[in-house]
C-alpha cells in the first residue's frame, strides 16, 4: 500500500536513506532563475565543476525582470541597475555552462512555474526542483516538486541529485463542489486558514476528492502553488485524463511511442486506495465562499462577506492588524483599495486573466485605483491578446504589462506604496512583501477585479449573480 508520494519518492532514490545518511534523490527537472542561482554557479566555478545534465536544466528570467515593454523590446535600459546586473549574470552563467535560457526577448520566457507546465516539461511522476518556494505548483501534475535554496541549486547543477530525508504525508480531501464564483484560489486560502501557515511543516500534501478532480490543470496549479503557505514544501494531485489532455499537445511532452509509454507509467502513479497518510484533513467545498486575507500572513483569511476576528490581547495578532490599519470586528467588505494586482505564479495563467476580464468587460476601474495586469508568461500574454483580453483590461483602465513576477514581491520596481492597500492575486501578504509598508489583501482574480471596479473589497457575486 503506497501513496502517490511514496511511489514517486522510491522511483527516484539513487541511494535509499539510512539512519546515518539521507536519501540521494534524483532530480528529473531543474528550473533556475536569476535570483537564486548566481552564487551556485560561483561554487561550480570555484570547484571546477560542470553542470551534470544541462539537458535537464532550464533557465528563465522572471523575478527582477522589468514588465515595461520598452525595457524588454524597445531598447530602453533596465531602470534598476542591480536587476540588470543580475540578469546579465544569468545570461553569462547559462552561456558558460551550456544551459538553455529563455532570455528576456524569448517568446517562451515567463515565470518559472508557468513556463515549465506550459512547455510540457512538468510531467507526472517526475521530480522537479527550483530555487523558489512556489515550485510546489508543479505538483498539480503528480510530480514531486519543491523549492530549494541556492546551495542545493548548486548540488543539483553539479550532481542532478539532492540529499533528502523522506517527509511525512498529509491528505487534504475536498469533497463536494465549489459554488459559482468560488475559485481554486478561494479553496486554497480556506485550506491554509484551516491548517495554519506552519501546519504542513515536514509534510507533503496530497489534494484529492471530488472538488479537486473537477478542477482544470490551471486551477490545480493554483491550489498546489500555495501549499508552501501552509508550510508544506510540496503538494501533489494524482494525474488523470485532465492532466493527460493538458499535456498531450505541449511542445516538450513526449511524442509518439514515448507518449504511450509515458501514459502507461503515469496511470500507475495514483496512490493505492487503502494507503495511509500521517495526517488528514477533510474540507467541504460546497461550504466555501470567496476568501480574502486581512492580516500579514496567508492564514489570516476570512470570507469576503465576513468580519475580522477578535483575538483579545494576542500581541502578534494585534501587531498584524496595526500594520494593516484594520480593526477586529469590522467587516472586510467595502475596505477601500488603492492598487489591484492581477498576475503571479499563483494566478497569472490564461484562465485567471479570462476570469478577471469576464468581470471587467464593459466596466471601468474605480477612479484613483491603479490596476496592473501582468501575464505569467509571454505565451499567456500572446494567447490573452489573441482573444482580446488586453483590450478589455486597457479599456477598463488597467495597465497591461510584459510577463514576470512583478508586484508579487516588487523586486523589479513594480511596488505598492507605503500604507497603500493592494488587493492582489499573488500568494503572500507578508509585511512589506509588495513594497515597504504596503498592505496586501490576497484574493482570487474575480474578487480582485470586482474590487477594482468598486475601489473597495467587493464580493464578486454582487456582479456575477446580478
Amino acid at each position, binding site marked *: 500500500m503506497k501513496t502517490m508520494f511514496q511511489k514517486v519518492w522510491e*522511483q527516484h532514490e*539513487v*541511494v535509499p536513506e539510512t*539512519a*546515518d545518511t*539521507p536519501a*540521494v534523490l*534524483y532530480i528529473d527537472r531543474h528550473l533556475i532563475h536569476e*535570483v*537564486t542561482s*548566481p*552564487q551556485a554557479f*560561483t*561554487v561550480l566555478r570555484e570547484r571546477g*565543476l560542470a553542470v551534470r545534465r544541462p539537458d535537464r536544466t532550464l533557465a528563465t528570467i522572471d523575478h*527582477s525582470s522589468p514588465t515595461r515593454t520598452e525595457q524588454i523590446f524597445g531598447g530602453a535600459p533596465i531602470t534598476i541597475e*542591480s*536587476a540588470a*546586473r*543580475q540578469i546579465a*549574470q544569468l545570461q553569462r552563467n547559462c552561456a558558460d555552462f551550456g544551459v538553455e535560457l529563455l532570455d528576456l526577448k524569448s517568446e517562451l520566457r515567463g515565470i518559472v512555474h508557468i513556463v515549465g507546465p506550459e512547455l510540457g516539461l512538468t510531467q507526472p511522476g517526475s521530480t522537479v526542483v527550483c*530555487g*523558489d*518556494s512556489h*515550485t510546489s505548483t508543479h505538483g498539480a501534475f503528480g510530480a514531486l516538486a519543491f*523549492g*530549494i*535554496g*541556492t*546551495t*542545493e541549486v*548548486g*548540488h543539483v547543477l*553539479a*550532481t*542532478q*541529485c539532492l*540529499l533528502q530525508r523522506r*517527509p511525512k504525508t498529509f491528505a487534504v480531501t475536498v469533497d463536494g463542489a465549489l459554488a459559482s464564483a468560488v475559485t481554486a484560489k478561494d479553496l486554497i486560502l480556506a485550506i491554509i486558514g484551516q491548517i495554519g*501557515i*506552519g501546519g504542513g*511543516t*515536514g509534510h507533503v500534501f496530497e489534494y484529492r476528492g471530488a472538488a479537486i478532480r473537477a478542477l482544470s490543470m490551471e486551477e490545480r496549479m493554483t491550489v498546489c502553488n500555495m501549499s*508552501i503557505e501552509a*508550510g508544506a*514544501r510540496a503538494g501533489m494531485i494524482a494525474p488523470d485524463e485532465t492532466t493527460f489532455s493538458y499535456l498531450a499537445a505541449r511542445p516538450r511532452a513526449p511524442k509518439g511511442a514515448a507518449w504511450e509509454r509515458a501514459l502507461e*507509467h503515469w496511470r500507475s502513479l495514483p496512490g493505492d486506495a487503502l494507503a495511509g497518510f500521517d495526517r488528514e484533513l477533510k474540507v467541504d467545498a460546497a461550504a466555501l465562499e470567496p476568501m480574502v486575507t486581512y492580516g500579514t*500572513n496567508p492564514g489570516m483569511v476570512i470570507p469576503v462577506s465576513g468580519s475580522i476576528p477578535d483575538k483579545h490581547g494576542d*500581541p*502578534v495578532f494585534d*501587531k498584524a492588524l496595526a500594520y494593516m490599519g484594520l480593526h477586529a470586528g469590522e467587516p472586510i467588505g467595502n475596505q477601500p483599495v488603492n492598487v489591484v494586482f492581477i498576475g503571479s505564479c499563483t494566478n497569472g495563467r490564461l484562465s485567471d486573466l479570462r476570469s478577471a476580464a469576464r468581470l471587467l468587460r464593459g466596466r471601468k476601474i474605480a477612479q484613483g485605483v491603479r490596476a496592473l495586469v501582468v501575464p505569467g508568461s509571454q505565451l499567456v500574454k500572446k494567447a490573452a491578446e489573441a482573444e482580446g483580453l488586453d483590450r478589455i483590461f486597457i479599456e477598463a483602465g488597467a495597465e497591461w504589462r510584459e510577463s514576470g513576477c512583478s508586484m508579487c*514581491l*516588487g*523586486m523589479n520596481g513594480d511596488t505598492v506604496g507605503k500604507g497603500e492597500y493592494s488587493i492582489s492575486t499573488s500568494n*503572500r501578504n*507578508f*509585511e*512589506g*512583501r509588495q513594497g*515597504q509598508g504596503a498592505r496586501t489583501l490576497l484574493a482570487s482574480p474575480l474578487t480582485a477585479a470586482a474590487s477594482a471596479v468598486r475601489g473597495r473589497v467587493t464580493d464578486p457575486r454582487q456582479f456575477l449573480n446580478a
Partner: protein
Amino acid sequence: MEPIRQIRSRTAVLPSTNIDTDQIIPARFLRTTTREGLGRQLFADWRYGADGSLVPDFALNRPEASGCSILVAGRNFGCGSSREHAPWALLDYGVRAVISTEIADIFRNNSLMNGLLPIVVDETTHRWLLEHPGAEVTIDLESSTLQLPTGVRVGFPIEGFARYCLLNGVDELGFLLSKGPDIAAYEQRGRS
C-alpha cells in the same frame, strides 16, 4: 566551512510568531550575485526607520543585544520563500543559531548548509527563553543539547548527517559528488 562544536552566547529575543523570510531580508535586497555583506540588510524594515536611523526599541538594536550570537524567536521562524539570503544575512550579522519551537523546512535546510544552527525546543524551554532575553546559553552540537543558565539541559533534534557535516566542517556537495557512480548507474537504468 569551519567545524562547529559549541556555541555559547547571550540570547536576543524576537517573540513574534511566523517571522517570514521577507522580514529577515526584504526582496529588494535580493538583487545581488554574491552572498557577502547581507548582514546590514537583516530585518531591514524592522531595524531601520524611514530615514535610515536605527529603531531604538527593536530587540537587536538594544545595547544588551550587542554581540549576541543566539536568536530566540517565536514559533514557525523562517516561513515563506526559499531565499538562502535569509541565513546568509543572519550569519553575516553574527547570528550563529536560531531557537524556536518550530522552524520552516526550507529555511532549516538552508541554515544547515551554511553552519547556522536551527534549534527546535519544547514549549516550556521556549517560554523560559522568551521570558529571559540576554540569558547565557550553551548549545552543544556533539551531544545535541542546549543548556540554560539554570543548569537545565534539554536535547534538540538535528538530522544526523547534517550534524556530522557541521561537526567536521565538511559540506554535503563532496558527499554527493562521491556518489557519482551510483548516479550514473541510476541514469543508465532510468526510465527516460
